[in-house]
């Protein structure tokens, strides 16, 4: 157990810190990250600077426009910590740089990598992910949107849903059923689709928060070149699953929890009912402390998972539980904040007396979305018990397809 990073990493930290001190003023104001639109010129310029110094697209080879460093998870952590500390943007994230680029590096052809990776990491091409469908949610492999061969193209028909950023995207990477006679899992291909192709209709999908963070995407006779398949036809399921390996380090989310907890404490020291501060109510305070213990546990849990990665260990169960545990705590933090404000906790949509621009309510609802999205809590429990604990799989109906 040693929580120091050692001299090599500390000097790297100094470098990042010096970069922030010198260039930090050029960073765009921090945006919301999720459901965002296209990166503007200021953010693209900041991203260029980050790539040049190796703080973005760090391990993407130079040939494709990246920095070309060896993977080093600790340096990545230090970069994130220092950019956060300085309050500057971490650059362009989202589905393209975070999900597509690593997948393409692993499975893409030389031509695909040369064409797409550079513009993607520079924020010139914006991507959305086309996985979920109305009838393929928890059962993702049940994707029905089909691509029928027509010369050198596929003709795509069907519908995707929960497509973040689709309204602002140039391209989609998605799962399309191209092999009607193959098995359920073996019939999918991982395909790149230009969003300006005729026949694509993007409609915003409003959620309970009142915002439209997501979209529905409809395909009517959309012509897509077969050359846009990543890897081989029919390998889409395997390729989409490797994407999951590239999910961002959980440290980022535990830092978010930590920040939310600090804001909650500040709120409870400020808000009063009958002249008594929320934090002076023994019942509310007890709930606060229960949550604090969980946030601390998750903070050190992510350090433990990080260490496991540097040691090339994979503690299956411990790794699988993080989403389930983290999303729930995140939701409960917002629930408690609302309770601490009582009646005023319901204020929304810019109402007079609303606190923090209504963020506690919108986050309470949004985190419920996170509990459901990316594999519902119940699917997470299936995965934990089956892959982690070795309990028998659910009998699968229709896996023959």
């Amino acid at each position, binding site marked *: *157990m*040693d*929580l*120091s*990073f*050692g001299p090599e*990493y500390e000097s790297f930290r100094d470098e990042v810190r010096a970069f922030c001190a010198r260039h930090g003023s050029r960073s765009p104001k921090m945006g919301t990250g999720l459901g965002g639109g296209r990166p503007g010129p200021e953010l693209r310029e900041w991203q260029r600077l980050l790539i040049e110094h190796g703080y973005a697209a760090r391990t993407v080879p130079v040939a494709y426009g990246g920095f070309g460093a060896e993977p080093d998870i*600790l340096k990545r*952590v230090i970069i994130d910590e220092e950019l956060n500390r300085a309050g500057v943007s971490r650059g362009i994230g989202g589905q393209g740089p975070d999900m597509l680029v690593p997948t393409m590096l692993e499975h893409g052809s030389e031509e695909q990598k040369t064409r797409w990776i550079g513009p993607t990491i520079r924020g010139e091409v914006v991507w959305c992910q086309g996985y979920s469908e109305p009838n393929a949610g928890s059962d993702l492999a049940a994707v029905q949107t089909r691509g029928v061969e027509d010369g050198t193209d596929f003709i795509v028909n069907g519908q995707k849903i929960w497509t973040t950023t689709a309204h602002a995207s140039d391209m989609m990477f998605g799962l399309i059923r191209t092999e009607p006679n193959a098995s359920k899992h073996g019939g999918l291909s991982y395909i790149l689709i230009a969003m300006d192709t005729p026949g694509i209709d993007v409609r915003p999908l409003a959620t309970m928060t009142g915002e439209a963070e997501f979209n529905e995407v409809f395909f009517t006779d959309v012509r897509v070149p077969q050359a846009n398949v990543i890897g081989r036809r029919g390998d889409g399921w395997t390729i989409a699953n490797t994407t999951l390996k590239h999910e961002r380090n959980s440290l980022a989310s535990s830092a978010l929890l930590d920040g939310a907890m600090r804001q909650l*404490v500040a709120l409870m*020291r400020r808000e009063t009912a009958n002249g008594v501060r929320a*934090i*002076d109510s*023994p019942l509310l*305070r*007890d709930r*606060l*402390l*229960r949550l*604090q*213990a*969980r946030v*601390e*546990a*998750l903070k*050190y*849990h992510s*350090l*433990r998972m*990080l*260490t*496991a990665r*540097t*040691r090339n260990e994979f503690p299956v*169960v*411990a790794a699988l*539980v*993080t989403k*389930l*545990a983290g999303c729930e705590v995140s939701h409960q933090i917002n629930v408690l904040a609302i309770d601490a404000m009582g009646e005023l906790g319901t204020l929304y949509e810019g109402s007079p007396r609303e606190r923090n621009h209504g963020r506690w309510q919108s986050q309470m609802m949004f985190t419920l979305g996170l509990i459901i999205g990316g594999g519902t809590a*119940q699917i*997470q*429990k*299936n995965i*934990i*018990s*089956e892959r*982690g*604990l*070795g*309990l*028998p*799989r*659910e*009998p699968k109906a229709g896996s023959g397809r």
Partner: protein
Amino acid sequence: MDFGLSQEQSLLEESLRRYLRDECPVTRIRDLVAETPGRDGGVWADLCALGVGGLLIAEEHGGSGLALLDAAVAAESLAWGVAPGPFLGSAVMAPLALAAAGSAEQRVRLLPRLAEGSLRIGVAATEMVCRRDDAGVVERGGALSGMALMVLDGVDADQLLVPLDDGASLLLVAADAPGVKRTTLRTIDRTRGFAEVAFDGAVGEWVGERGAAGDACRRMLDAGRVILAADILGASERAIEMAVDYAKQRQQFGRVIGSFQAVKHMCAEMVAELEPARSLVWYAAHAFDAVPDEASLMAAHAKAHLSEIGPSIVRTATEVHGGIGFTDELNLHYWFKRVGVDRQLLGSPDALRESAARMQGWI
């Protein structure tokens, strides 16, 4: 940056679990403790031969001079096997207090014997946290009077470590000294031996000067809380193992019950609670030695949090077993009861959360 167990710590865990699995299964422990709670036969001697007694004792005094994280790893394994023995009192709280506040002469005289297991010290720490039934010990002119309830590892202890009501003075009293009357208590957990001790003019030796052992008392309490959290961790882990194994074998409705989502999800929920909690226990143990500013807060959080999730895990593990879980024969209740006792010791979860709020200046 390395947040995980060292190779040595993993080896310690392995060797303790091997011993407990092969030499000291719960069926043997049942017999050992049937008559007197906490009476361990030769188990404590065996464990001390494996180095358990001296983990926290300096090498110059016959121990291995390790850190609280090593002791937490040991505690987790001991609870995994519901091992009897005075680990909390004689291997953690007493040696830490003696090292912090004792004289050089006391350290030389007592620590080597604690390490080898030939001396047992019970710790009368309960009243440091909460007084019930008018208990508490006062000192007048070198003589002790009053009552200490729930003395940790008090059964079979040769000496008793007694903090006074001022929270800053410590005395060591021979358990067979005149004016000491010890009564064995019976809790739901037979694997640990609690006693209550009545003092009536008993004379002991000071550990540190009067009023000068406040730090030692606080450190002893923090360490005890972390070790209890680790105990809950190990006991809960074993209960989950038993439940998952059972869910893979037991058949009803023509299927193993572990293929039903209702059962599967119970198992997933147990590990989803346990694994982040393990990280919290490790950090609290690490902080005790390496991050002094956070040591007390993290000890309180770890103990409070594990005291919430542990009972819920052992209860769920019992339910996964169905009717057999409720039987005496299955022995799962040894882990259930161990956790139930841990939860109440050295501060109930609600009281610990209140002190955590105070430590942060919130109240």
